[in-house]
Structure formats: C-alpha cells, structure tokens
C-alpha cells in the first residue's frame, strides 16, 4: 500500500498509465467524428451550397478533456484507491478484553461489539491469544478463557449485557484467580460501582490497561413517586453535561387495548445538576393504565421504570343503605371506611348499574341485605371477572333472610338468624378480642392490638367449608372475617359493622392494615422486609438490559425478603413481580439511586468507542469513469448530429425510459401520495358544499353526458332555489367516499363493470343512511320499464345486491310531485311515465278532506326510470343545451319539465318528507286551485 495523505493505492504502479494520457490526447485529436450517410431526394436543392464557416474537422477540446478524464479515472480506479487506509496496531502477549456488560452499556452495545471486533481483527492479524470477559457474566471456572481471536469472533454476537451491575464478591473472587501477565482492553460503561477499583488495580498489576469509554453521560430514571396528587418523575445522570433535557413517556394500554404513550413529560437538567425532576398530573383513568415510564430514545434498562400497584389508585365504590334517619356523621355506616380509604384511593358512587359499568376494583356494601332486580347478577358477573366485593354486617343484614337457606353467591357463608351480642348491657360475658391470624390468612403477620373488641356480630352457620373460608376469628373461634373465591374474584364479609357500633375494629390501625392486605387500599411506600416476610413472588415481566419489557416466562419464585432487600442481580432480575394479591416493581434505579462516573488513575489510556474503517474508492472512481464515458457517448452523438436528427425522438424516448427506470419507485410513491391528497381535497370540497355526483360507467360519452347534465341541473338549482351546488363530480364506486354526496345519478350502460362486494357494501350503507340513487336506463324511447332491453337487464343485474325496498310507480300524491314544483310527469329526453320509487306502506290512507295520503316518512332510496334525464339537462360550459329535446316549443317545454323534475328530486333528497307534512296542505290546496 502506497499512500498520499488520506489516500492509499493498492496497485500503485498502474498509475504510471497516467503518463500515456498526452499521447492519447494527440491521437484522439487527429481523428474527427465520422460522417453520417443519408439518402435524401432533396439533394438536388443542396447542390452548390457551401458550408458557412470552416467547421473544424478535429475533435473539440472539451470532448477530448472528457475522454481524458474518463481514461484517467479508469486508470486511477484500477489502481485501487482507498480512503483512510488502516494500519494495524501491534502488541505482544495475551490480550484481555473486559466488558462491563451492565445496563449502562446497552445504549451503545453494538458500537462496543464493533470495537471489540476491531480489536479481535488486530489480534488475529498478530496472532495474539485473546480472552473476552463480561463482568456481569464471569467465567464460572475463574482465570482467563484464552482462545484464538477468530474463535471469539464467532462468539461475539452472542454476548449480551445484563440489566444489573456486576456482583462485587464474584468480581473479587475472579480477580484473585488471575495470575498471568496480560494486556487489558477495558470497555467501560462509565459508571462507578462496587468492586470496580479493586479489579482495576489487580489488572493494572498484570499489565497495561487501555480504557474505551463512551463520551455520553449515563442516565437513569428513578421510580415514579406519588406526591400531592401528581406523579413525580426524577432522572439522574452520571455527569453534569450532555443533553439539557430528556423526555419521559408514560406507556400503557389505551381503552382499546393498544399500547401507546399515555403522557409525556420533559425533564430539564439544570446546568451542573445531575438530577432533573418533573411532575405529571393525570386523570385516575389514565393513571391506572400506566405500566411503565421510560426515557425516550434511550435503550437501556436504567431508562425504564415499571409502575406497580404503588402508583395505582384503586377505584372503590361504597354502597350503603339509604339513610332513613338524620344520623350523626360518626354513626354513618361508611364514615370510617371513607376515612380509611380516601387518602389512597378514588371513591366513586352512583347506582349499582353505573358502578358495575365503571368496573371499579372494589365494591364495598355496608349493611346491605337485598339487591333488587338484575343487580345481583350484574355484581356477580363483575366479581367473577376479578372484582372484590367487600361486605360489612349490620342490623339490616342480621334481620334479613340473606344467606339463611342456601349458599348465596354474594355471601361467603350461610348466616344464622339473629347474630349475637356479647358483653353488652343485656348479655353475659365480655366483649371478645381477636385471635392472632393464622398462617393461611392474608392477614398473617399483622399484630393484633389488645384494645380491639367485638361486642356484636352476625354468626356463620357451621358448615364443612366454613373453616377454609374463615380468615379471621375472634378469640373464641367464631369467624370474624370470611372469604369466598368466586372464579377470579372474591367476596369478603366482615361479620361486624363498618362503623364503631358493633366493634372497635374500625377505629384501630389494624382495620387499615387489613384493608390493605385485602388489596382494598394500597400504600404508596416501598414495602419493608417485615411486610414481605413469608411471602413468595414470581417474576411476571422482566426488563432486559436494552430496556424492553418482556414476559418473564417460568421463573422460580423469589422470597419476599430478597425482594425487599432490592439490588437486582442474577438471582433477582429487575421486572414486575406478582405476589398473591398485588404486584411489585423492581427497577434498576431506585428512589435513592445516584449514579457516579467511573474514575481512572492518571496515565490510563482512555479512548472513545469510535472505530475507523477504510473506505475503498475503487467502485466510486470506476463509476465516475463510466459516467464520463456515457457523457462522451452522448456528446459524440450530439456533435455528429445523431441526437438532433430524424431519429432524435427515438433517442429521447430511450433516454427518458432509462431516467424513469432509475427514478421509478420515488415517482410512483409521490404519485400515490398526490392521489390521496387530491382525493381528500375532493371529498373535503364535496362535504363543504352541496355536490351532485354521477357514477362513472367507463363509457366516456355517457360520462360526459352525465357530467353535462348534472352541470345543467346544478345551474338551474343555483338560479331558482336556495340549493347552491358546486360543479358536479364523478364518483368511482370502488374508491370514493359516498357519504359526502346527497345524490348519485347512475346511468346504466350494458357494458359497465359490476361493482365489487366492498363497493356494494358502501352503496348499501349509503342507501340506508339517507342517500339517493337515480337509476337511468336511458332507453324509454325504445323499451318499456321492466322490459328486456339490454340496459334493463343490466340494471336488474346491477341492482340485485343492493338493499332496495319494494317499488311502485310514482303515485300521483307522492311527495316528489310537490317538493318544489307541482308536477305530474317526469320527462327527460324521453317521455315515459314509468318512474319507480319506494312503495308507500300498504296501510297508507287518505284522510278525510286531504288531497294526499299520509305517506312513508323517509326519502326513497332509489328512483328508477329510463327517460335519459341527463341528456335533457345537459348544457355546455356556456349554458347552451347540448341535445335537442322533442320538437320546437313543445320540446323546450319538455326540457323545462325535466329541469323541474330534477329540482324536485334534489329538493326531495335534501328536505325529505318536509312537503308531505300536512301543515303545507292549505297552501298546496290553494295553489292546486281546489
């Protein structure tokens, strides 16, 4: 390789060929372009004509230059030019490549792998033994896994970062197992973590360390907090430089079940600050849908923070019996419940039907015995779909028959009549205290205060299932809280009231804890180890190092203590953990995570991750040579008159085809976009003004007549009525949106294509929603309606899949006869009385003294005839009729009536049965002269 500046040449001696260029110049200069021989009869006229100027018979200098350039480029191209030729580094002894492999590596993992690949290539060239160690996935046997570099190249794509930091103990053990002299390339993630410095010192002892580190600061997102009704987000970064702000998006499922960004917030870093804060206020509906927050554009586990139940505000519906007395607030059955729930939950109320529709997490029924109507089914269905129905006893429940005779779905146990009172003025014994919760109970682990007593309760009927349904008992063993699973949901009954009337339980802190354990409410703080003691959690959704959230699959359970301890690792991958009743998120970054930058001792070589790659220029230069040659061909053709001669058209066509072939995809794309734009524009225009439309038949002549006809009708409407249509438009049933057109004119030709099924679906929807189609077979001069003219047969074929009601010839009292003009005939270019509309109902009757029947209430969806109305209406641009109608004055009269029919028709479409309203009868009678 021979280099000049950044250019290198693989075969430099070929450049000697450039010396031959001047010789080529002389040769080319001597050869003029060859003449064309043409046969031409007019040569007799040319004889004796002399050329004006002495045209050079040598090649012009610029053509020569073009050819020189082409040849020169070819010579240089074959000499193999290379930009930035790479000269490999050399080193000796084994090479250790250390990769941190943490989540902080993930955003530029591919660049790291590329850097490692380059190092491996160099090592391969010099034959060095190499070991690659990922610190989050240390070699199990210790020591250095030294292999040939090309063996590592194959394993390189399999290396993946882990969503946690290296384990310091394991690091220390591994560092201790090293004993060889080794040079180290350390691809650092830029973070400082436990055990890193010890390892660095150990490796520095063994040999030289070169550090490769990204220049970007590492960023992480702390878990979202709940504060003053707002979600507080915090992002931290390792260095106080880099981007000023980051955007955090809250992801979740929208009501349609599609994952999307529900909200975004921009977190601005103040200069020299490493923490940025922002808060989002969201409606409870949206807030409860959030599944995770992430820093946009950063692919790293640290940039993702899963949301768990801690962020959710449960929606709770409280139903209480209607208060018949003006009770004191403290006696209200639900006062204590509300006090306990309001801080952490959203309480909704309303009728049971509305509440079930709102699908709350919990419905609390305080002392409600009977539900009416379909309410029990509604609530049962809701429970079976995962709802929690929490019931409290009370005087009404005790007095009712609910759950006496059999197992009620909405009652966990059967109840005995009456209940019992203990420790009251009229009873024996002391008020009962609670027994400690058993290990099967969801309340296991809660301490029972001594002062909680129960003085009255409803009693459960002894039953084989009673023991398993009891989750809290009094000291004497009588059930206090019972629970029944109902498919995915559960029904829980507190055998006491929700207020302090029967027991002091609602006054105690235990009550709140119990509600919390039942997942009625949840506390937005991190659970302590004590809270989680004895529980088992399974990973539900895992976060990968790249910040993607994936289904975890089957993983062994994790004890609650380990989960409470935090610090994700190999045995505790970050993600969303599911316990019995709730879900906990374990994120890479915690609320107090501060990330600090890795510090390297002075004198360590620190390089970026950028890899330099050489760019071979051979292809480009040879392409340039080819382009010069092509240009030369064109120029030579042009010079010799072959481009502008008689065949120029063909040459241009070939060139155009070539250019088009090169730019085809882009052009096609642009065209399709343009199409949609114009379609949209058309639809918008048609929607903003009344537009008459005709169905394109594919027969140019018929389509032109249709357009001219509707143009004529539009002008008449504009002049005479308050309907002011714009120019008519053509409608293609296959593509166009029909709903913007009130009226379609559909001329029938025997050879028009049948619309597709989709088009028919559109048409039927159009007809059902008030559109009207005027079918015109245009053959009333030769055929009777219903006859077997070709157009008639085609009409039957076309209309078969349409949703058309029974038809009848226009009755004399049809509203079409009086929507604007009073008409009895509907002529077009032909005069036929066969015009059919939707049949009036069989029971329509003429009231006494009324000229018209009380007819159907809607617009007829179709009008069918064959009078070739469009031809009668047709005018050219200057408003002059195009086709003769009839003869003389009678013909003009017929055209006028045809226009009147058109006006009536459009009026009928736009005003419906307005004129069939009996209010108009007197005026109409007056005009009819009756």
């Amino acid at each position, binding site marked *: 390789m021979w280099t000049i500046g950044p250019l290198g040449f693989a075969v430099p001696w070929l450049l000697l060929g450039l010396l031959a260029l001047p010789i080529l110049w002389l040769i080319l200069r001597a050869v*003029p*372009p*060859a*003449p*064309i*021989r*043409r*046969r*031409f*009869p*007019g*040569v*007799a*006229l*040319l*004889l004796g*004509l002399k*050329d*004006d*100027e002495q*045209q050079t*018979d040598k090649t012009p200098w610029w053509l020569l230059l073009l050819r020189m350039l082409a040849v020169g480029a070819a010579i240089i191209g074959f000499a193999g030019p290379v930009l930035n030729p790479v000269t490999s580094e050399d080193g000796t002894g084994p090479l250790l490549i250390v990769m941190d492999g943490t989540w902080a590596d993930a955003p530029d993992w591919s660049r790291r792998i590329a850097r490692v690949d380059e190092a491996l290539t160099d090592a391969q060239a010099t034959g060095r033994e190499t070991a690659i160690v990922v610190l989050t996935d240390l070699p199990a046997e210790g020591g250095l896994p030294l292999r040939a570099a090309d063996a590592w190249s194959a394993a390189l794509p399999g290396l993946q970062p882990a969503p946690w930091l290296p384990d310091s103990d394991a690091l220390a053990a591994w560092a201790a197992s090293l004993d060889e002299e080794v040079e180290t390339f350390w691809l650092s993630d830029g973070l400082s973590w436990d055990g890193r410095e010890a390892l660095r010192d150990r490796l520095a002892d063994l040999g030289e360390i070169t550090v490769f580190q990204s220049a970007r600061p590492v960023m992480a997102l702390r878990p979202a907090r709940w504060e003053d009704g707002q979600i507080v987000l915090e992002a931290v970064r390792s260095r106080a430089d880099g981007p000023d702000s980051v955007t955090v998006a809250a992801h979740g499922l929208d009501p349609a079940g599609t994952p999307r960004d529900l909200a975004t917030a921009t977190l601005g870093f103040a200069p020299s600050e490493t923490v940025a804060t922002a808060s989002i206020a969201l409606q409870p509906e949206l807030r409860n849908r959030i599944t995770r927050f992430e820093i946009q554009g950063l692919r790293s586990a640290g940039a993702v923070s899963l949301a768990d139940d801690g962020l959710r505000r449960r929606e709770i519906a409280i139903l209480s019996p209607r208060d018949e007395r003006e009770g004191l607030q403290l006696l209200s059955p639900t006062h204590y419940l509300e006090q306990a729930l309001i801080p952490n939950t959203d309480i909704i109320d309303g009728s049971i039907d509305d509440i079930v529709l709102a699908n709350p997490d919990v419905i609390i029924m305080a002392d409600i015995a009977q539900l009416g109507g379909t309410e029990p089914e509604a609530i049962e269905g809701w429970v079976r779909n995962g709802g929690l129905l929490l019931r409290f006893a009370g005087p009404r429940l005790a007095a009712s028959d609910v759950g006496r005779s059999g197992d009620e779905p909405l009652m966990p146990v059967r109840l005995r009549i009456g209940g019992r009172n203990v420790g009251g003025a009229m009873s024996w014994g002391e008020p009962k205290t609670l027994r400690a919760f058993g290990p099967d109970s969801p309340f296991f682990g809660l301490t029972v205060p001594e002062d909680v007593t129960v003085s009255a309760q409803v009693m459960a009927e002894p039953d084989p299932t009673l023991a398993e349904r009891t989750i809290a008992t009094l000291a004497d063993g009588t059930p206090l809280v019972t629970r029944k699973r109902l498919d995915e949901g559960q029904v829980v009954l507190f055998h006491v009231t929700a207020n302090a009337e029967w027991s002091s339980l609602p006054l105690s802190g235990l009550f709140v804890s119990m509600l919390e354990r039942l997942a009625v409410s949840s506390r937005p703080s991190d659970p302590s180890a004590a809270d989680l003691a004895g529980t088992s959690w399974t990973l539900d959704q895992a976060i990968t190092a790249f910040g993607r959230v994936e289904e975890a699959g089957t993983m062994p359970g994790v004890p609650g203590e380990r989960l409470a301890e935090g610090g994700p690792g190999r045995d505790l991958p970050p993600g969303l953990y599911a316990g019995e009743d709730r879900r906990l998120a374990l994120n890479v970054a915690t609320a107090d995570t501060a990330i600090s930058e890795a510090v390297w001792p002075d004198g360590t070589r620190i390089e970026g991750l950028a890899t330099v790659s050489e760019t071979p220029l051979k292809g480009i230069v040879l392409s340039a040579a080819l382009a010069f040659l092509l240009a030369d061909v064109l120029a030579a053709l042009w*010079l*010799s*008159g*072959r481009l*502008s*001669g*008689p065949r*120029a058209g063909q040459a241009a066509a070939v060139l155009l085809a070539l250019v088009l072939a090169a730019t085809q995809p882009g052009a096609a794309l642009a065209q399709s976009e343009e199409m949609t734009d114009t379609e949209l524009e058309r639809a918008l225009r048609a929607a903003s003004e009344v537009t008459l439309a005709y169905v394109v038949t594919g027969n140019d002549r018929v389509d032109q007549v249709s357009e001219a006809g509707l143009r004529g009708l539009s002008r008449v409407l504009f002049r005479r009525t308050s309907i002011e249509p714009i120019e008519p438009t053509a409608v293609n049933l296959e593509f166009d949106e029909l709903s913007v057109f009130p009226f379609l004119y559909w001329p029938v030709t025997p050879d028009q294509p049948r619309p597709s099924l989709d088009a028919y679906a559109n048409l039927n929807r159009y007809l059902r929603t008030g559109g009207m189609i005027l079918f015109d077979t245009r053959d009333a001069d030769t055929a009777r309606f219903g006859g077997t003219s070709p157009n008639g047969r085609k009409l039957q074929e076309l209309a078969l899949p349409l949703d058309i009601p029974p038809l009848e010839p226009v009755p004399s009292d049809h509203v079409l006869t009086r929507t604007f003009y009073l008409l009895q005939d509907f002529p077009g270019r032909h005069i036929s009385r066969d015009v059919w509309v939707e049949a009036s109902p069989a029971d329509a009757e003429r009231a006494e003294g009324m000229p018209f029947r009380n007819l159907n209430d809607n617009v007829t969806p179709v009008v069918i005839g064959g009078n070739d109305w469009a031809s009668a209406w047709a005018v050219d641009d200057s408003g002059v009729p195009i086709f003769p109608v009839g003869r003389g004055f009678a013909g003009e009269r017929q055209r006028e009536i045809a226009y009147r029919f058109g006006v009536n028709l459009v009026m009928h479409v736009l005003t419906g049965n307005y004129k069939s309203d009996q209010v108009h009868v007197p005026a109409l009678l007056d005009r009819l002269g009756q």
Partner: protein
Amino acid sequence: MRTGAGLRQEAETLAGPLPPLLAAAEHLAASVLTGEHGRRRTGQGDQFWQYRPSHAGDEARMIDWRRSARADDALFVREKEWQAAQSVALWLDAGQSMEFSSAKDIATKADTARRLALALSVLLVRGGERVGLTNAGLPPRTGQVQLLRLTDALASPAEADEYEAPELRGIPARSRAVFFSDFMGDLAPVERALTRAADRGISGALCQVLDPQEEAFPFDGRTIFQSIGGTMVHETLKAGDLRGRYLERLAARKDALSRLARNTGWQYLCYHTDRPASGALLWLYGALERVH
C-alpha cells in the same frame, strides 16, 4: 399448350397487387363522394335537371306539355343535366426520388401518388369521365375495365431515371390533366411541358407530393447526402447550417411552380405524405370540376 393450373397461377400473380390498391383507392374515393353525379349544368344527358319558362327560339317539341298544362299561362321547357364526359389524363412521376419515405409508418411518395391518382380515377370514372395514364400510354377511356387497366399500369413499376419530366403523349387537346410529382428535378422540362399543354388547351392540376422530412430538413452534423438513385452526392460538415438555405430554395421552387401553374391556367397543390389523403383528393376533384 398451357395448363389450367399455370394459367391460374399467372392470373393470380397478375391480379395480386390489384385489389389492395384499387380497394384503397375506392375507399378513399368513397370518403369524398358517393353515387352517380352530374355536372350540375344544363346540357345533354339522361337525368332531369329543371323546368324553365320557354322563350323565343325554343322549338315546339321542346315544350313539356304536361308541366305547361298545369300552369296558367306559361309554357315550360324540360331541361336535362349535362352529362357530357370529359377526358382526364394522369401523369405520375416514376423517378427514383419518389421511392422515398422518411419513416416506416409513412407511405413513399410514389405510393401516395398512386393511391391518390387511382382514387381520383375511381371518382372520375364514376362520374362518367374518361381517364387515361400518360406514363403507360393509356389513352383516356371510361368504364370499370379502364380502372383495372389503370391499376395494372400503376402497380407495375418501370425503369426510371433519378428525376422524370412530365409526359404529354396521348393527351387529347382541350382536355384535363393531373401531374403527380415531387418536382425535385430540373424545372425546365416541367415548364416546357406546361407551356405546350397550355398551347393545346389542356388545363389541369399540379400535385407536388413531398415527404415531411423534405419539408423540415431535420439534419445536423457532418453528413453525406445521397440521392435515392445514388447519382448525386453532397457532403457537408454541418448540416444544420444548411437548413435555412435549403428551405429557402424549396420555397422558391414551390413559388416557381405555383407561378408557372397560374400563368398556364393550371392549379397547384403541395401535398405532404403524412397528411390525410382525402383532403388532397377532394381538392383535386374540385379542381377538375371547376368550370373554365
């Protein structure tokens, strides 16, 4: 003795070129005029032309008594339409320069001229005129057989020079003539022929048939122009520069032809082979109908 099969084969070979040319000509003729036609003048003929009031000098036998009996006081004479036949002689330039066409979809000048000439013959024969072809020495005659003879003569090419001069042989005095040529050769023989024709009372039309390329001269660059026969060669280094002067010369030639025609009582048409033929045919027919 000739066998039947041999005779048949010869006949078919002879008849081969006839139908398409004649059919094309018939088709072209049909676009201009259909059916029998008279001269639209009073004269000798079979067809009724008009009644006119009699005036002094009319013979008594010329009175149409039936018509006169219906009138109150006037006498009417029945006139017939003039159906006297005229002789029209056609001359087609058979020179090699006519065998030129600049594009595949354009007929050669000779073909175009043949088609026009034959279509004109069809029209004239239908009108009852006599048509002849001076190239082949066919004297003017009328009837379908003459049409077949014309077709035959037109379809069989003869040896010819680069440019040919009009032939007046066999044209009766005071008849009509139509010359089809590109008039690219020397104009002197044309001028001589027209002068002689005028002397003999022959009037008619000159139809200059040109290829669009001859009209446009779309050439450029170093070019060697050759005549069709290869007898004339002209080399230029820059054909584009010649265009203006070539067109000037062409215009001068057209002008000369037009002036020559005017002076001798002829009419002149320049027709391009890429134009519809029916227009030219209509013009030619009209030119022959004009009363002098």
